[in-house]
Structures are given as C-alpha cells and as structure tokens.
C-alpha cells in the first residue's frame, strides 16, 4: 500500500493528477426511465476493442494474397490452437458491434439527442457507423471465399455508378478493372490500417464531445438525482459489457463462423448468395427494382435513393427545427419509424425467404 501511495504522490507531484481525480469524482450521468440507452455507445466501443484485439491476433497468421489468403484462414481455423475461436469471435463481434451501433443510433435519434448543441456528436457517430460498415465490407473479402468474392464484385460495382468519378473510384477500390488479388491486398490495407486510424480518431472526438457537453436528457422525463459516473455508472457499464461478452462467447463457441469455398473468379455466382444481414434491406430492394424505372436504370435509381436517404438522415440536426426549440416533432418521429420499419421488415422478409 505504502509503495502505491508513494508512487501516486510522485506522479501527482510531477503531473498534477489530483484535479483529474476530483473531476472524475464529480462527474455524473442523468437518471430517468430511458437511461438504459446510455449503455449502447459503450457496448459498441467494447465490441470495437474486441475487434482490435482479435484482429491483431489474426494478423499473426493471415496472409493477404489471392493465393494464400483462403489457406491461411483455413490454417488458423484448423491448425492454430484456438484459432477457430479467435476468428469466430472476430466475425461475431463485428456483427454485434454493428447491431449495437444501430441500436445506439436509433435510441439517440428517437430521444432527439442530435439537435443543437450536439450536431457534431451525431455527425461523428453516423460517420463511425459508416466506417463500421466499411470494416464489415472490407473484412468480408479477406478470407477470399466465394461469397466474399461476389459480394465485393457487387459492392464495388455499385461505387462505379457514382456520377463522373465512379469509374475512377472503382479502379481505386479494386486496384484495377476487376476484383483480383490486387483488390484483396488493398482491402487488407484499408481494413487493418486506414479504417482503424480514422475510426480511432473519430471515436476519441465523439467521446470528447460527450465529455464536454454531458449526456443528453429527454425533457419530458421526471427528474431523478443523477448517478455518479464513478463508480456507479462505470460498474453498470461493465455489467453490460459482461453480458455482451457472454453473448459473444456463446455465439462464437456454438455457432463457429464458416469459411465456405475458396473464391474462383471463373465460377458463376452460387445460388442463394446474399450479403451480411446489415446490407440485406438494400440487397432485397435492388433485387425488386425493375430494369428501368421512368427510363432510368433501376439500380442507379435505387442507389441514388439510398444516397439521398442516407444524406437526409445524416442531416437530421439541420432539418429538425422543432426539437431544437424543445417541441415534439411528429415529422421526425414518422421518418424514424419509417426507416426502422423498412429496414426491419425487409431484413425479416429476406430471412423468411419471401423475396426468392
């Protein structure tokens, strides 16, 4: 004990740490009927940390070339002790992270927490969700299996529909005209270096904004005395993390992630091919759109609609004037439920096989 106290004193003397401790002691989190939603941002961060840790472990054996990628993942799953578990956790945690991020985003949306003064928190948050989807898309290709190969062909082809710079973007993403080993190497670099760097920066910014402004409180809620951040809130958050870890461990152990068949660029796309669940609503919509709508190619119209819709969602803090004034916004509520119902319905119907 003495030694720790001495060490603390030595550090405090040099770096003036006591004010930080005082600050942490004062910090509090609002309490109300819906304060459960405060835990989902932290839970998303927890899964992100798991991704970093398991991702680093996978890097020890993974080889990012078209010739070796599939075999190296196979090696991880069959020969490396606990390799199957590490890879399974990485895949499952990715899915849980995105699920948690979606829940976090929708609770923030329905609470109206994105309005002034928290516009930048919303924008960095939506950007982080897009980065998470980018992680999912780029990581999906890395095992170089059949599903991944075609998912990447389709996904990168969508990018080529962007007006003016589409073809240029396609070449930058694919590292050439087609999805080849060059694409795999590029996606690997994006997945393990570019996206982690940007995400880490944005997460720190996102947290710094929350730290400066404090948690948003819904106005209509009856006020309860706030909960101290340390240790009460932190311990509760840890409990949520523990539940997340238990769920993750169960999924990873009982439903190990499959590897599938090695990609063959000269094989047809397999029947029943579909993307990860978080892209299903877009996938099914693109399947339903006819070849031409009002003389415009269906998929271009669909992709344009998704882009405009996404932008509209992103810009919520700008068009929602009512909530800024503290009033209820029926329009924002209808938009929010419309989006939730559309995504939920299309995803569920896709799983039920209604669109086949």
């Amino acid at each position, binding site marked *: 004990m003495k030694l720790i106290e001495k060490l603390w004193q030595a550090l405090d003397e040099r770096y003036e740490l006591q004010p930080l401790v005082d600050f942490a002691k004062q910090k509090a989190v609002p309490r109300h009927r819906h304060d459960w939603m405060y835990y989902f941002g932290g839970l998303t961060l927890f899964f992100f940390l798991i991704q970093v840790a398991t991702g680093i472990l996978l890097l020890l054996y993974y080889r990012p070339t078209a010739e070796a990628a599939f075999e190296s993942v196979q090696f991880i799953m069959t020969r490396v002790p606990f390799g199957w578990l590490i890879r399974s956790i990485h895949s499952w945690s990715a899915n849980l992270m995105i699920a948690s991020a979606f829940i976090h985003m929708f609770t923030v949306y329905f609470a109206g927490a994105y309005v002034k003064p928290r516009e930048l928190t919303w924008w960095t948050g939506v950007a982080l969700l897009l980065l998470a989807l980018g992680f999912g898309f780029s990581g999906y290709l890395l095992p170089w299996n059949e599903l991944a190969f075609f998912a990447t062909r*389709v996904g990168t082809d969508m990018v080529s529909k962007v007006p003016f710079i589409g073809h240029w973007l396609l070449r*930058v993403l694919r590292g*050439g005209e087609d999805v080849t080993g060059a694409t795999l190497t590029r996606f690997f670099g994006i997945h393990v270096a570019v996206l982690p760097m940007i995400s880490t920066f944005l997460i720190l910014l996102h947290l710094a904004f929350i730290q400066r402004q404090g948690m948003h409180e819904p106005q209509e809620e009856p006020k309860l005395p706030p909960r101290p951040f340390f240790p009460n809130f932190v311990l509760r958050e840890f409990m949520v993390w523990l539940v997340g870890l238990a769920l993750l461990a169960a999924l990873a152990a009982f439903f190990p992630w499959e590897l599938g068949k090695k990609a063959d660029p000269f*094989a047809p796309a397999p029947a029943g091919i579909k993307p990860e669940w978080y892209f299903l609503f877009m996938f099914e919509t*693109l399947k339903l*759109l006819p*070849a031409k709508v009002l003389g415009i190619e269906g998929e271009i119209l669909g992709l344009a609609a998704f882009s405009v819709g996404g932008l509209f969602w992103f810009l919520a803090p700008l068009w929602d004037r009512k909530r800024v004034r503290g009033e209820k916004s029926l329009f924002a509520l209808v938009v929010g439920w419309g989006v939730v119902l559309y995504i939920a319905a299309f995803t569920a119907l896709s799983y039920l096989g209604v669109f086949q």
Partner: protein
Amino acid sequence: MDTGNKISRKGFINWLLGTSLGATVVAALYPVFRYVLPPEVAEAPTNRVLAGKLSELPPNSGKIFRFGAKPGILVRTQGGEVRAFSGICTHLNCTVQYRADFQHIWCACHNGHYDLQGKNIQGPPPRPLETYKVDIVGDDIYVTRGA
C-alpha cells in the same frame, strides 16, 4: 494586400508563405493521389479463345470460360446450337450461369434472367449480355469477340 497600389511587406510575406505551403501540400499529395490509382496494365487484347469442347457440352447446359481476364458463358440450347455471351451480369457485375431447369441464363446475385439470345427478360438487369461469335472446328468451340 492593401487597397493601394503598394503591397505591404507583411502581406507579401504572407502571400509568399501561403503559396509555398500550398505548393508543398500539392507536391506531397499529387504523388499519393497518383500512387493510389492503379496503373493501366497493358493486356494483350484477347479476341479469340478456345472456350471448350463440344463433347463436354451436352444440350441444355452451359459453361463458364475464360475470355482474357473476364468470364464468358457458353450455352448449348435444347436444339444443340452453341451460343456464347459475356458472363458478366449487366446489373451489378456478378457472374451468370445457365439454369437447365429454366432453360435460360440466370444471375444468382439479384435474380436476373436472360433468354438464349442474351436478352434481359426478367429481374433487375438493365441491358442484354454482350454476344460473341461461335465457330466450331471439329470438337473445339472457338469464341470470337466483336467483328
């Protein structure tokens, strides 16, 4: 810069530093920008390939073949006629396949259908598949692009 015809010393220095900084940033970013864009790989244009053997392609079947770097599809109709098309779906770039049960070409990714002329007949594909010329020499099927 001030409003008179004389340039202030401070304004001049700021202009000089600003443009130098701008030029340095551009000089640093331009190679990065060019580096990220992959170089055009000069491919020997493939216009004619041996796509398969007639004996390996029974009526009402299909086969993917390599046409340079891209997939092509050979189809042998119920009547025994051999046709060849680009194997790339015009919708979102997947590789199509011949479905014996439909007796036409199908893309698994978004459920696109093409008839035996390569014409898009159902689902999201916006355009027909590119058609290639087929020559049969003995048992060999040769496919030629364009004409």
